């Protein structure tokens, strides 16, 4: 499965970038995130409860940010394993300066395996699109909040 989309953010590219790399922000957008542990530079481990309606599963997930090009783009790789199956997703996140602030463009690919793929293939494409869209909408809210918080704390907005 794959797709793309974009969200509008209110801060400058630099502000947005700082917020994106904040683990607290990541924790807010990961669906059903129950624990988030920083395990290395740009690496995290988490327990996620993901699903749609009654079909929910608990996944033990690892996340890492790779190909990090400061203030421009990065790839977010997520691998989750749980009872219903596993997910391998990768999203390319790119920032673009706009008049209103920053446009965040994303493209993603996702492979789903296990039981959920075997019996749920009819809905996987749509549900993936939904969850990814959800993630970026949450990201949008979380980043906007963080940018506001950073501003009001008079933290330097970055180089």
């Amino acid at each position, binding site marked *: 499965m794959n797709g793309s989309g974009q969200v509008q953010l209110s801060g400058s590219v630099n502000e947005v970038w700082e917020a994106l790399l904040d683990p607290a922000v990541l924790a807010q957008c990961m669906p059903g995130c129950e624990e988030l542990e920083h395990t290395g530079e740009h690496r995290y481990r988490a327990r996620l409860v993901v699903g749609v309606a009654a079909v929910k599963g608990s996944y033990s997930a690892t996340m890492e940010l790779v190909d990090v090009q400061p203030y421009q783009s990065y790839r977010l790789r997520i691998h989750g394993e749980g009872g219903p199956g596993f997910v391998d997703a990768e999203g390319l996140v790119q920032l673009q300066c706009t008049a209103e602030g920053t446009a965040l463009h994303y493209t993603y690919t996702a492979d789903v395996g296990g039981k959920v793929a075997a019996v749920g293939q*009819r809905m996987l494409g*749509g549900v993936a699109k939904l969850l990814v869209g959800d993630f970026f909408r949450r990201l949008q809210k979380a980043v906007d909040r963080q940018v506001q918080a950073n501003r009001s704390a008079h933290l330097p907005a970055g180089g």
Partner: protein
Amino acid sequence: MKPSSFDYYRPDNLEEALAALAEHGSDGKVLAGGQSLVPMLNMRLSAPACLIDINGLTELNYLRWSEGWLHIGALTRQRVLELDPHVRQRFPLLAEALPWIGHVQTRNRGTVGGSVVHADPTAELPLCLQALAGVAVLTSAQGQREVPLDSFFLTYMTTDLGPDELLTEVKVPIPATHQGWAFVEFSQRRGDFALVDVACLLQTDHHGRMTDVRLLVGGVDGVPLPLAEAEQLLTGECWGASLQAELQQLVAASVEPEADVHGSAEYKRHLAGVMACRAVQQAYRRAQDRRGVACNT
């Protein structure tokens, strides 16, 4: 395929059911017909901590007629709705759609409420009840609220139902007697999930021009999709070959279905266009019939 452990409650009446939901709603699931839920439990795709079996709530099993409305109790079995002569007569769209839901055996158990709450993107009842401007009646220990179905279905298998709420009724306004209707479905085998299904309601004026057009497609999105642009295209027009070609193209361009093993996105887009035209053609013919007008289309 054995489910994981769960607690089981079987309330005797609505009050008890609502109390159970208030207490367990967020990690419980309501069991009605079980035709969708039980397989999910057995496959361990769903593992609620408790099941609240509402099959004892006979008070929710009713078909009532009031001024301008049909009130369908949530526990009404699909087969009962299918066979009721008054429903067949006044809601021919439902009469046409219900035989497409699974098989007789599953319709004997499956409920109207269950189908609406389950909100499968291809399901016939959510599509048709939304096309008919149906309203969901949601009850909790706190009271009752009503949500029109076109706002009730949020996305894949997800509705506006709160964790402590029970869908107790779907009410549907009784359509005008000269309304044309059509339900069409395309599936590989009889009884399978639809690749695409279409519900169409419309009326015609004395010039044969279409008015009050409702055209909704299932299976191309997470919820039934009203085709607003297509409805506009048809409004004020008579049905004919060139309009059909235009409609087919417009519908295909208006939908963004997901590919799956049963069809590519391109195929489903095309199929949506074809099936929409077949539905409109049928609805138009019936509207004209009801006006007593011979139709050559």
